[in-house]
């Protein structure tokens, strides 16, 4: 049967094919909303999960593929960095001798960011709740937005937050109580 023959060839192809990068990355990707059908996975699923869990995902690249000219790649690289990412903001913590700087684009959500801040400043920030803020925890993360106002981290959707955040300040829990109450 022709179809079977095609798949036979396919298997041989995979076995003998020379690749310079991680193979089979095509079959494992998360499908975007417009295309929900998963293609048959040639790769074992365990590798899928590993790739998806590590964040940010390593961009496995084959040399010279896709065939985009170096000049264009460099321009787009600069573009991506300035348009969508490289959002570096200063982070201060009350009582700390110096400030730090982080790239908000590196984090995928609030949980990710807060965990990183906790590690960076060796503090405990606690869990966000809409009603109580970070009540009960030692520290509360706040940020200065585009309008110059000091806001509690976590109120707005993540995407909105990273584009409006100008700098971060980790306040002592006692001071932050004032913010949470409003």
């Amino acid at each position, binding site marked *: 049967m022709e179809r079977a023959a095609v798949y036979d060839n396919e298997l041989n192809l995979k076995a003998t094919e020379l690749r310079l990068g991680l193979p089979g990355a095509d079959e494992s990707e998360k499908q975007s909303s417009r295309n929900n059908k998963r*293609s048959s996975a040639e790769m074992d699923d365990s590798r899928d999960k590993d790739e998806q869990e590590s964040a940010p995902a390593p961009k496995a690249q084959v040399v*010279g593929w*896709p*065939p985009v000219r170096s000049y264009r*790649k460099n321009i787009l690289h600069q*573009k991506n960095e300035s348009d969508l990412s490289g959002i570096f903001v200063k982070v201060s913590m009350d009582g700390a001798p110096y400030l730090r700087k982080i790239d908000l684009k590196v984090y995928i959500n609030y949980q990710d960011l807060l965990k990183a801040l906790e590690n960076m400043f060796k503090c405990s920030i606690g869990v966000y709740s809409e009603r109580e803020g970070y009540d009960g925890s030692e520290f509360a993360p706040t940020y200065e937005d585009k309008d110059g106002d000091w806001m509690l981290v976590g109120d707005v959707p993540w995407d909105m937050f990273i584009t409006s955040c100008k700098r971060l300040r980790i306040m002592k829990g006692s001071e932050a109580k004032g913010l949470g109450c409003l």
Partner: protein
Amino acid sequence: MQTDPNPKKSKDSPSNSDSTESTQSASPFPDDVLGKVLSFLNSDKDRSSVSLVCKDWYNAERWTRTKLFIGNCYSVSPEIVATRFPKITSVTLKGKPRFSDFNLVPQNWGADVHYWLVMFAKVYPFLEELRLKRMTVSDESLEILATAFPGFRALSLMSCDGFSTDGLKSVATHCRNLTELDIQDTDIDDFNGGWLSCFPENFGSLEVLNFASLDSEVNFDALERLVSRCKSLRVLKVNKSITLDQLQRLLLRAPQLMELGTGSFQQELLPGQFGDLESAFSNCKNLRTLSGLWEVTSVYLPVLYAACTSLTFLNLSYAALRSVEFGNLIAYCPNLRRLWVLDTVEDKGLEAVGSSCPLLEELRVFPADPFDQQLHRGVTELGFVAVSRGCSKLHYVLYFCWQMTNAAVATIVQNCPNFTHFRLCIMNPGRPDYLTNEPMDEAFGAVVKTCTKLQRLSVSGLLTDLTFEYIGKHAKNLETLSVAFAGSSDLGMQCVLEGCPKLRKLEIRDCPFGNAALLSGLEKYEKMRSLWMSSCNVTITACQQLAREMPRLNVEVMKDKESDDSQADKVYVYRSVAGPRRDAPPFVLTL
């Protein structure tokens, strides 16, 4: 360029040839008449044919050729060229293999223009034009260029490297009659923009000025004065450092422009400035081409609307526009023939193209994020189909996407059967039809069966030998074929080599084609410009055999560091009348 079929001593001038033996000459025309007639021939193909007719015609042709086109700088040597053609005023030279654009060719591979220029300085003092593509050009070479040719007028450097803005300083300073300075797609050492200020204050002959790919800031006052002085300026493409209000001032000086490349399209404009910019654009009645638009903020796009009606080429490939703002813009461009966009416009944007641009002939959709393995945003097969429905004149496409189906491609070529250039890049290597899971063989089968005028094809996706059987059987006008991560066996490549009579350039990477495939094209390669094969299954032994049996081919091999001794990791084969090149770096093995 054809080799002379009857090698002979070259004669000094047409009037000497056979003048005392005119009764024995086969040609019924006196030499000067023949020369006059041939001087009207412009096409290289015609001239090659003419030169093969007989000795007299060969001679007359070589004396009347003024434009030299060399598609592979190593296919011939400066000495051979200088001996054969005494009257050259315009030279086009192409160097590195195309895959060097994608980092597959190491630095210092070659294609240095230096020795060509040294020869030209000796033999062609009246040289006027030099157009280089993928060549290495040093500042020293630019210095020679600037000083050795008093009548020099046009310099075009596309995808070249090796020079810096210092070299451009020489050109600006010394070339009194320069009409064209066109620098494209170049990553060079951009020390500073001072080169532009080197054009003398009384210099005003520029017609084409393109410095869009140079990063550093130029002296705006000097640029404004230059633009004012150059009354014949028709092409101006500035770089990112030029702001919107500066652009407006330039447009006031040069409303006659036909091609404009803007600078950065993002700036906090005062309300008055917005209106000024708008009227500056609407004053440019001759604008046919628009490009640039870096960092574009959509709120300023409306200033372009008035100028869009006459546009035939719109290059938005550096402007990350979304579908809505792009749709609004494209609605003003009914006369567009060529469109380059980023895939940020998505399928919806392409639907707008289909409904707004019925005259469209060429579409290129570039990926904004080609290495995004997870989100796969951009365009899909639906966008391509939408364009094909609305634009029946479409014949050139370059399309980057993450998914495609056989059915979609079949529909596309049914809507647009006149494709001459079909370059489809499904960005995950070896991806099948995402709906049926079958290989994409039938898609490309449909392309070659339906599009009989097809000259250039780039294939992608999961492909078996069947694709190449189709190509060999149907693509009778195919000249350039690019293949990556495709095929099942040697048979695939063999089908192409046996079946495509007009094939000139074949570039292959990461395919399971081996020695049998390579050697099946023994006699074909002399009729082609070049063959590139990398990361395939070819051994050095087979390459040596090829080199032995075909002495007029140069067979060059580059090895990857970690590979097996017998593997020929990168093979570049090309015909040459100049023999093996003498400037090959140590990592290039010439067999």
